C-alpha cells in the first residue's frame, strides 16, 4: 500500500491520530481497495473508534502498490505513541508539511511515514509493526431509532459545567427533553459530590429523533476526546443510540472524504443505590475490590455491543472479531476461545457495574460473595435462619 496525502489533509490526519490517542494505546491500520481505515480500542474495551479515509482524501492512492496477490488489503497494528511521534503539533502541520507519504510493504516489518516539509526537509519515520491483525467491532448503525444531530458546541458547553472529577455522564433522552447528568457511582459518599444536571431543549439540536425514551451512561474521557475532534474539524456530530446496554455511536463525517465512528459502551444508572444505606455501599466497595484483584485490569464497563451475527448472540462477552491475515478458520476459533476465556473473569463485572438485567448471569463466584454478606442486608436477625449446632444455649428464662 502506498498513498500520498496533501498538506491540508495532513492536518486532518494529525487531528485524527491525536483523537485516537485519547482512546487507545494501539492503532490498527487497514487498507482496502478504496479507503484506509484507522481503528483503536481502549484498554477497558468500552470505547472503540474507527475512522475511514476514502480515496479522494489522498492525492495518490494505490492499495496494491507492491502488487501482491492478496486481495484482502493490508492490515497492521502499531503503537499509538509511535504514530503520535509522526504527527507532533497538528495545529501547525498544514503550514509546514507539503506532502505525506505512507508506505506499507507486506514483506517488511515497518510502516513508513515520509513527511515532506517546506524547504526540502524530509522526515522519515519507520514505525515498527506489532501485529498483522485487524480488529473490528460489531455494532449497528443507521438501524437505530434515536438520532440526534447537532454542533459539537452544545455538548462542549454542557460538559463545561461538570467537575473535572466526573468520569461518566448519563443522558436521559425522551422526545420532549434531553438531560445530561454526571454519573454518581453507588459507592460514592453522596455528601461529597456535586450532582449536576443540564437540561437542554430538544429544539436546540439540528435534528432530534428519539425512538424509545432511554437513559444511557458512558465515559466522559472518550466523549471529550471525540468532541475535541469534531471541534478541531468544525464538523457536526451525530449521535445514534438505542437503549441502555447498547452502544452509543457518534458519527463525524465530511461527506465523501472521511467518516469517523466513535462507539462507546453504555450502562444503566442504578437508581436504587441512591437510597441505599452506607452499610450496603461499603459492602459493595469490598465486593468490588475482590473483583478488582481477580480481573487484574482497570475496571470499567465492558463493551456490550449489539451483535447482528446470530452466532454471537448468546456470548455477549465476545465483542471483537479478530481476523488473522491468512484466514484459517480453526485458528480463528481457537483465538475466539482464548478471547472468551480471558474475558470470562471480566464479565463478573457486568452485574456489579451495571446492575442490569439484560446481562446474563455471571459465574458463581459472585453469588458466593453475595451469600457471605447477605445477612448484613437483612433488616432483622432471624434466629430460625441459623441451622445446625447451637454452640451456646440460651440461658434460662428465669
Amino acid at each position: 500500500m502506498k498513498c500520498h496525502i496533501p498538506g491540508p489533509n495532513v492536518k486532518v490526519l494529525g487531528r485524527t491520530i491525536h483523537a485516537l490517542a485519547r482512546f487507545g494505546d494501539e492503532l490498527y491500520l487497514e487498507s482496502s481497495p478504496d479507503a484506509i481505515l484507522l481503528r483503536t480500542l481502549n484498554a477497558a474495551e468500552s470505547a472503540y473508534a474507527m475512522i475511514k479515509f476514502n480515496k479522494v482524501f489522498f492525492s495518490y492512492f494505490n492499495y496494491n502498490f507492491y502488487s501482491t496477490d492478496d486481495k484482502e488489503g493490508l492490515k497492521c497494528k502499531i503503537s499509538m505513541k509511535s504514530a503520535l511521534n509522526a504527527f507532533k503539533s497538528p495545529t501547525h502541520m498544514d503550514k509546514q508539511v507539503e506532502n505525506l507519504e505512507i508506505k506499507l510493504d507486506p514483506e517488511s516489518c515497518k510502516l513508513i511515514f515520509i513527511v515532506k516539509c517546506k524547504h526540502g526537509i524530509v522526515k522519515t519515520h519507520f514505525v515498527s509493526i506489532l501485529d498483522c491483525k485487524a480488529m473490528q467491532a460489531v455494532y449497528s448503525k443507521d438501524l437505530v431509532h434515536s438520532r440526534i444531530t447537532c454542533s459539537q458546541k452544545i455538548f462542549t458547553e454542557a460538559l463545561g459545567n461538570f467537575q473535572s472529577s466526573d468520569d461518566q455522564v448519563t443522558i436521559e433522552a425522551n422526545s420532549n427533553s434531553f438531560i445530561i447528568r454526571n454519573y454518581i457511582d453507588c459507592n460514592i459518599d453522596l455528601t461529597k459530590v456535586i450532582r449536576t444536571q443540564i437540561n437542554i431543549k430538544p429544539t436546540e439540536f439540528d435534528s432530534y429523533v428519539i425512538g424509545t425514551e432511554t437513559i444511557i451512561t458512558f465515559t466522559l474521557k472518550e466523549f471529550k476526546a471525540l468532541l475535541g475532534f469534531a471541534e478541531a474539524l468544525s464538523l457536526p456530530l451525530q449521535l445514534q443510540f438505542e437503549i441502555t446496554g447498547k452502544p452509543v455511536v457518534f458519527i463525524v463525517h465530511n461527506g465523501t472524504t472521511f467518516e469517523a465512528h466513535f462507539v462507546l459502551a453504555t450502562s444503566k444508572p442504578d437508581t436504587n443505590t441512591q437510597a441505599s444505606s452506607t452499610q450496603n455501599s461499603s459492602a459493595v466497595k469490598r465486593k468490588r475490590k475482590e473483583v478488582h484483584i481477580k480481573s487484574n485490569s482497570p475496571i470499567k464497563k465492558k463493551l456490550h455491543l449489539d451483535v447482528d451475527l446470530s452466532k454471537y448472540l448468546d456470548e455477549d462477552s465476545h465483542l471483537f472479531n479478530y481476523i488473522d491475515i491468512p484466514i484459517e478458520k480453526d485458528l480463528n476459533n481457537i483465538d475466539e476461545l482464548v478471547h472468551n476465556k480471558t474475558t470470562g473473569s471480566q464479565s463478573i463485572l457486568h452485574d456489579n457495574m451495571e446492575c442490569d438485567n439484560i446481562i446474563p448471569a455471571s459465574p458463581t463466584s459472585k453469588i458466593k460473595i453475595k451469600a457471605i454478606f447477605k445477612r448484613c442486608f437483612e433488616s432483622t436477625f432471624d434466629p430460625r435462619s441459623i441451622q445446625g449446632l447451637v454452640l451456646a444455649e440460651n440461658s434460662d428464662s428465669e
Partner: protein
Amino acid sequence: MKFRAVMIDAGPMREFTNIVSTISRLSKECILRLSPDKIYLIVSEDNSGPAPPMLWCEMPQSTFFLEYQIVGVDDEHKDIYLGIVSANLSKSLVTLKTAKCLKMKLTKKQCPCLTLEIEMPSSTSQQSRQVTHDIPVVVIPRKMWSEFHEPRVPHPDISIELPALKQLRTTIDRMKCMSPEVVIRASAEGRLTLQIKTDLAKVSTRFKDLRVEAFEGPIDHSDSETETQTMEDVSRTCYCRVDAKKFSMFLSADQISHNRTICSIVHKKLVILCLQTEENVKLQCFITGIVY
C-alpha cells in the same frame, strides 16, 4: 429552615463568582452564613480548634439578589449556617459569568444540598438551557454557631491604606520564597515597609505616601529588639511579624474589583486586612503575629 434567592444582574454575578473563587483558593472548606440582610463566608484556621475565624467576608444581600427569602429554625435563630466545600461552590459558579439567572435554594435531596439553578444562554440558538448543581452541605447546629462569630479584635494602633494589591503580591511572592515570615511595618507618616531577614540577606520594600486612616500613637517600643532606625521617629511606627504565606493568600483577592484595602496593625500582635468593594462587600483577613 428555608432559603431561596434569585440573582439576575451580570455585575453582581461576576462579583459573587470572584469572591467565591478567591475564598476557594484560600481554604478548602468554608462556612456560608445566611442571615436576613447579609450573607457571610467565613473561613476558620485549617487546624480547626477553637480558633477565631481567619477570613470574614460579608455581602449585603440586597445588592446581589433580586429576591431573597430566608426562614430560620425559629424566631430567635433567623440565620442559617452551612458548611460547604468552597471548591465545589466555586467550580459550580464558573459558568455564572455568562449566565442569565441564578437561583439558589436550600434543598434536601438525600442529603442537605445547596441547589444552584443556572439559566445559561445557548450559543447556537435563542433558547436557554437549565443547569442544576446540587452541592452537598452540612447544616451547622446552633450550639456551634458561637465558633463563627466575628472575632473581637483589639483596637488597631494604625490603619493604613495598602498600595495596589497586584504590586504588593508580586513583592510578597518573591519574599515568600526566601523567608517564611515577613515583618509588616507601618508608620504614621504613610510609609509601609515589608521586610524579610535570612541568614544571608535582609530585604525590605518600602511604599511611600500611603494614606493613614487612623493612628493611635505613640507606640511603646521599650521591650522591642528592633534596631533604632535613624531618620524615623520610632514611636510613630508599629510592626507585626506574620506568616508570609497567609499574607500572600489574602493578596490573591486582587481579582475582586475593590475600592480600597486597609491594613490595620495591632502592634506585634495582629494584622487585619480589609478589602472593600463598591457593593459594600467587606472581606477581612485576620493574621496573628508571630512573637518569639
